[in-house]
């Protein structure tokens, strides 16, 4: 780990600048993508990426320059570009950051089991091929794949105040998907993919449940193809963790991002129905709703010690007993808004600047087993595994769709239904939270695909949640 650390520190120390503060954020990433589709291995794909962002603050105005030229001259050139730009935009700058504190912390953070090697390409491909081959022969099963993406990311943050913050993360994203089709309708069932990822080693693949799952996933795709459409109308809605993560992400995470509330994202990702004055006052959900920013679950995707601006990360309640208490705002947003926040200033790589992002955003478990959740529903539906997501730019009116639905009547699971969709309004939806699953229903999930920002950035975010029940939600099926 950090094999270029000493050289990087040496070059950083040799940089010369008239800026009052400057920093270097070096990111080195390697990525491996393996996939077996319909029993044929796709060409393996690898990537190696390395570069640095130099950021300066001149008279309270910040600017950056990102470069892959890590030579002494290359870094010095980028630093001078950033400095010149800071002076150029000074008269037009929105922000005066002269009052913002600068970290001098030094710390190393490693993913769990980072010292344990993961199996090589041949073994991984063998595992995926085995899973693919176990999909039953059935002419209605028209497409299937098993995949594994592994990323290794090293980041070093250095600044002129003496900080040295190093993170080394390994992320694994296993996945499985099967599509069944009768020529007119198609139904897919999946495991993992963009709904599951964790930090760690090969144990992540076991925790995902990938191994041996293909026959079950294929059978479920076939069941969906034969199933009736989801009935329409208000029902109690039991969301499993693999849909809860999307629900949390879209209708709690994004609306609480402070840069959206401050207007930065209005041209692209959007604004928020939440106002700055709502913190400490707005009843976001029922008393059962407790949501945390939690960088401490070591296997979760966005567990880290410091964010990309050097703010120390700790667990914080954003919503406690249904009351909105804290935004997702990093140090800069805290300075701008005068509100509290969290360590969520993050960038997707060396060529993008940190902005307010989700990290690990979790819903704390309650006290009901899954059986108790089901028994508490008279007329309802279970939905699992997100497949469609859409929400307005203020993150209020949403419509989500799942792969798997199962009717619940009189406290019992009944028939399977296809195309389960539901819609609602964030500001009201969470107030209908009527039951929260206990630790036995709690799953640590996450996605590599949270998009936001201008210029655009995709980051990994973690979501952990129990199963939850919502009262009287508008559900409906498809046309087919």
């Amino acid at each position, binding site marked *: 780990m950090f094999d270029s650390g000493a050289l990087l520190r040496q070059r950083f120390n040799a940089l010369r600048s008239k800026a009052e503060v400057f920093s270097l954020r070096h990111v080195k990433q390697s990525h491996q993508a393996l996939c077996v589709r319909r029993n*044929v*291995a796709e*060409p*393996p*794909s*690898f*990537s*190696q*990426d390395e*570069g640095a*962002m130099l950021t300066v603050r001149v008279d309270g105005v*910040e*600017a*950056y*320059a*990102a470069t*892959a*030229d890590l*030579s002494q001259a*290359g870094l010095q050139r980028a630093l001078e570009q*950033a400095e010149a*730009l800071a002076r*150029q*935009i000074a008269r*037009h*700058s*929105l922000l005066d950051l002269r009052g913002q504190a600068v970290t001098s912390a030094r710390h190393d953070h490693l993913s769990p089991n980072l010292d344990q090697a993961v199996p*090589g*390409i041949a073994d991984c491909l063998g595992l995926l091929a085995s899973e693919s081959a176990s999909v039953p022969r059935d002419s209605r099963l*028209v*497409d299937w794949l098993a995949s594994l993406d592994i990323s290794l990311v090293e980041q070093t943050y250095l600044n002129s105040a003496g900080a040295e913050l190093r993170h080394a993360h390994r992320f694994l994203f296993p996945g499985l998907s099967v599509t069944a*089709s009768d020529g007119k309708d*198609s139904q*897919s069932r999946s495991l993992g993919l963009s709904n599951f990822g964790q930090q760690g080693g090969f144990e992540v693949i076991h925790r995902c449940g990938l191994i041996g799952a293909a026959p079950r996933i294929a059978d479920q795709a076939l069941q969906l193809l034969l199933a009736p459409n989801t009935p329409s109308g208000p029902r109690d809605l039991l969301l499993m963790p693999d849909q809860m993560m999307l629900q949390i992400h879209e209708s709690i995470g994004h609306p609480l991002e402070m840069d959206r509330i401050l*207007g*930065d994202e*209005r*041209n*692209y990702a*959007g*604004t928020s129905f939440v106002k700055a004055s709502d913190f400490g006052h707005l009843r976001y959900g029922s008393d059962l709703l407790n949501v945390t920013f939690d960088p401490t679950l070591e296997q979760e995707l966005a567990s880290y010690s410091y964010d990309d601006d050097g703010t120390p990360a700790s667990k914080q309640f954003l919503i406690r007993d249904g009351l909105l208490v804290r935004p997702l705002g990093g140090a800069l947003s805290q300075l701008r808004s005068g509100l509290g926040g969290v360590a969520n200033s993050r960038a997707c790589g060396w*060529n*993008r*600047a940190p902005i307010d992002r989700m990290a690990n955003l979790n819903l704390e478990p309650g006290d009901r087993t899954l059986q108790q959740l089901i028994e508490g529903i008279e007329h309802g539906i279970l939905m699992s595994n997100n497949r*469609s*997501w*859409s*929400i*307005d*730019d203020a993150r*209020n*009116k949403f*419509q989500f769709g799942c792969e798997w639905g199962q009717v619940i009547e009189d406290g019992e699971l009944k028939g399977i239904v296809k*195309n389960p969709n539901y*819609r609602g*309004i964030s500001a009201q939806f969470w107030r209908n939270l009527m039951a929260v699953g206990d630790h036995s229903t709690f799953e640590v999930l996450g996605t590599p695909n949270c998009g936001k920002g201008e*210029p655009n950035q*995709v980051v990994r975010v973690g979501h952990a949640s129990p199963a939850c029940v919502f009262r009287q939600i508008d559900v409906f*099926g498809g*046309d087919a």
Partner: protein
Amino acid sequence: MSDTPRHRFEALVSALHAALLPGEQFTLGFSAEQSQFVRFNHAKVRQAGTVAQASAQLRLVREGRQAQQQVTLSDDAQLDRQRLDDALQQLRQTLPLLALDPYLSLNESAWHTHSQQQHPLPELDEVLALVEGEAGDLDLVGIYAAGPICRGFASSFGAFGWHQANSFNFDWSLFHANGQAVKANYAGQAWNAVDFTARLRQAREQLGFLGLAAITLKPGSYRAYLAPAAMDEIAGMLCWGGFSAQALATGNSALQRLYNGDATLSPQVSFAEQVSGSLSPAFSDEGSPRLDVSLIDHGQAHERLISARSAAEFALQSNGADRYESPCALSLAAGNLPNAEILERLGTGLYISNLWYLNYSDLPAARMTGLTRFATFWVENGQIQGPVSTMRFDDSLYNLLGSELEALTQEREMILSTSTYGQRSTGSSHLPGALVKGLTLTL
């Protein structure tokens, strides 16, 4: 940069040729940009920076096996050759671990293409001064992105493609104090301060309509006009595998029923992948010259986008599509409705400037949902009555561009992608607006 991007690329290609062993073949893609990014909020600079990045994508082929590796290039010629050589070694070690790839298909022709334009870009000071002068009193939010973009491709068979262009994309919104907003964009390759100023002033004028009292609609079916930017969101959904040969062969395309002959669109609808004349490179990342492809002809399914891999897997003929088989320059043929008559023909209904966050609610039925965003107005008897609060629609493409399609506009807009995920996009679409008899609003 120490040398021109093309020279850097050519040097890497030469080094690869020299390093190749008997029986090996390679393809090498190249992508580079030097970008100026300036974010605005409240007509002030919120965040500004520059990004210089370049990468090479090496694919090594030997004895029916293939693997690929992307490496970031450093601007140091010696280091970059070393990185490429490291990648070559890793791929050499990987290939023996792989089974034969039955869908391996290489374009073995030695095609050559070259496109280069170097229109001068504006000085940042000029852009900042124009924003301050023309919109300093407005609540402007958005991004200015500009700089040269390069794409290259070469193969051991002698193919060579080069695409280099200076471009800019200023994408912004103007917000009214009531929270309503109008969106505008000025993008292209030849900057003209007069044109930019005109766009800003046009957006400022539209703000006036947003001051009218907002109208809240109930769910139901409404006549609607979808402006080209709104149509771009719908077209964007079709780019998610809609025309893909693989998706169509495996039940994962939203246009399955159209291509199966079980459904049709309006005879007014003709879609094409129109690479010629667009800002996209004339070659794919797979190493084939891109072709213009007629996708839907007068409402009937026509060709599909076929990559070399799909061609091998499904016994089809490749037509230059990249591996994702997604259009990079989607074009919808113009109709006969003059822009000047849009409001009159709409009569009473919705004028929708933009849509947002579309997704499928039932993919095989091509049923999609999404929301109105930015300037959406309620119109009565051809007169704008006021902005409409955000509404959700949920409707099938077979309705919107099928039974419910009344007219497409005579005038089309060339919409340049604002996407900057990973790198600045060269994609575009060329679309008319659409007048529909019924759009289903649900929430």
